C-alpha cells in the first residue's frame, strides 16, 4: 500500500515537474522573441538616426516588427496558463508597451522628428539582458 502511494506521489511529482519545465521553456522562448523584437526596434531606429537607412525601409521594418510583436503576443495569450504565471503576465504587458512604442516611433519617422525618436528609443520596455 505504502509502495503504491509513494509511486503515485512520484508520478504526480514527475508530471508536475515536466509541466513546470514545459511552461518555463515556453516562457523562455516567448521572452527570447520579445527581447529580439525589442533589439530589432532599437537597431532600426538607430540606423535611421545614423542616416544609414531610408524612411521607406524604416517604416516598412517598424510595421513588420509591429506585426511580429502582435503575433508573439497572440501566441503567448493562446495558453491561459502562461498568462496566469506572473512572468507571462509581465511579458504580455511589456509586449503591449512595445506595440504602443512602435506606433509612436512610426509617427516620429513619418514626421522626421529625430529628437522624439531618440527619446522613444530609450523607452523600449523589453531588450536583451546582459546575462544571456
Amino acid at each position, binding site marked *: 500500500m505504502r509502495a503504491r502511494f509513494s509511486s503515485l506521489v512520484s508520478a504526480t511529482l514527475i508530471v508536475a515537474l515536466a509541466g513546470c519545465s514545459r511552461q518555463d521553456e515556453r516562457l523562455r522562448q516567448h521572452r527570447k522573441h520579445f*527581447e529580439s523584437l525589442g*533589439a530589432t526596434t532599437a537597431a532600426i531606429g538607430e540606423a535611421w538616426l545614423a*542616416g544609414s*537607412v531610408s524612411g521607406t*525601409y524604416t517604416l516598412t*521594418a517598424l510595421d513588420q*516588427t509591429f506585426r511580429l510583436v502582435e503575433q508573439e503576443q497572440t501566441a503567448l495569450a493562446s495558453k491561459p496558463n502562461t498568462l496566469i504565471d506572473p512572468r507571462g503576465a509581465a511579458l504580455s504587458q511589456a509586449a503591449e508597451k512595445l506595440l504602443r512604442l512602435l506606433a509612436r516611433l512610426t509617427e516620429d519617422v513619418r514626421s522626421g522628428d529625430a529628437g522624439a525618436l531618440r527619446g522613444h528609443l530609450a523607452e523600449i520596455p523589453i531588450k536583451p539582458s546582459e546575462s544571456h
Partner: protein
Amino acid sequence: MSAIVDLILGVVTSIGGFVEVGSISTAAQAGSEFGFQLLWAIAAAGLMLAMLVEMSGRLAAVSRRSLAASVRERFGIHFQAVPLTAELLIDLLLLAAEIGGAAIAIKLLTGIGFQWWILPIGLCIWLVLWTCGFAAIEHGIGLFGLVTLSFVLAAWRLHPSPLDLGAGFVPSLPGHDAVRYAFLAVSILGATVSPYLLNFYSSGAVEEEMSEKELWVNRTTAYLGTAFGSVVSMGVLVTSAMVLQPRQIVVDSYEQAALMFVPAFGRWAITLFALALGIGCFGAAVELTINAGYVAAQVFGWSWGANKPRRDAARFTTAFTLVLLMSLAIAVIGFDPLRLTMISVALTVVVMPLLVLPFLVLMNDPKYVKDHTSGAIGNGFLAVLTIVGALLAIAVIPLEIMGG
C-alpha cells in the same frame, strides 16, 4: 579554348546562382541564433550538392538523358509517381517562397506591400521563360546573381576571427536550444541540396549537348562552382553572426535580416540586401519553373527544351505555366514567405531519399554511365547523409512546429 570559356562561365554562373531564398533565410537564422557554430552544415551540404551535381552532369553527358528521364526509364512510371509527386509539391512550395522573397525585396525598396508584387513577378518569370533560351537563362541569372557576393564582402569587412571561423567547421553540440539547432542543420541541408537543381543541371547538360569529352569541365564546374557558392552562403551566416547575434536579434523576417548589412555598407545596405535577395530569388524562381516543365515533359515523354520554339514544345510550356500559376496562387494567399521557406526546405530533406537513392542506383548502372560509375566512398557518403538527414528531419520538424 571553348571548353575553358565554358568552364569559367559555368563556375561564375554557379556562384551567382547559388544563393536564393532558402540559403539566405537558413544561414541568416543560423548565424543570428548560433553564431558560427553551423558553418559545418553549409560545408557538408555544399559537398553533397557538388557530388550530386557532378553526377547529374555525368549522367547527362554519358547517357544523353536527363535525371528524370533516366529514372522514368530505369524504374518505370509506377515507381516514379511517388518521387515525382514529392518533388513537384516541394517545388511548388519553394517556388511560392522564392516569388515571395523577390516580392519582399521590392517591398524593402518601395515600402509597398509584397502581395502587390507577386503577380508582376510571376509575369516577368513567364516572359523570361517565353523569350529566352537555356544559355541566356542560366548565364543571365548567374551573372546578375553575382551581386550576392556582397554577403562575402560584408563578412570580409567585419573581420571575423579566423580561429572562431575554423571552430565553426567542426560539428559541435549547442549550449542551448538543441532541437532548434538540429532543425536549422536539417534546413541548411534542404536549402542547399534542392532536388530541382539536379534535374535542372542534367537537363541543361542535355540541351547544351555536353559530351563525354567534357566530363572534366563538368567535374570542375560542379566542385568549384559549388565551393565558391557555399562561400557566399557562409558569408550570409558569418555576417548575421557578427551583426545580429551580439544584439540578440533572432531573424523572424527579411526586414530584420536586412539589418545585417548596415555596419558593412551604411547607406547602401538595404539596397544591396534587397538586390541580392531579389535577384537570387528571381533567378531561382525562373529555374524552378522551367524545371517543373522539364520534369513533367521528361516523365511523360513530351517534347521539351528551353531552346526549342514554344510551339514545338507546347505541353512542356503548358506544364511550367500551370506550375507557375499554382505557385502564384499559394504566394498570393499571403503565407509569410520566411516561414514558407523554412517549411519547404525542411520537407525537402524528408523526401530526399526518394530522389537521391534511385539516382545512386542509376549512377552505378553501366547501361547509363558506361565505365563512369560512382565510387564506393561517394556512394556511401551520399547514402548515409541522405538517410541520416531524413531521419533527423522526421524527428525535429514536429518538435520545431510544436515549439514554434
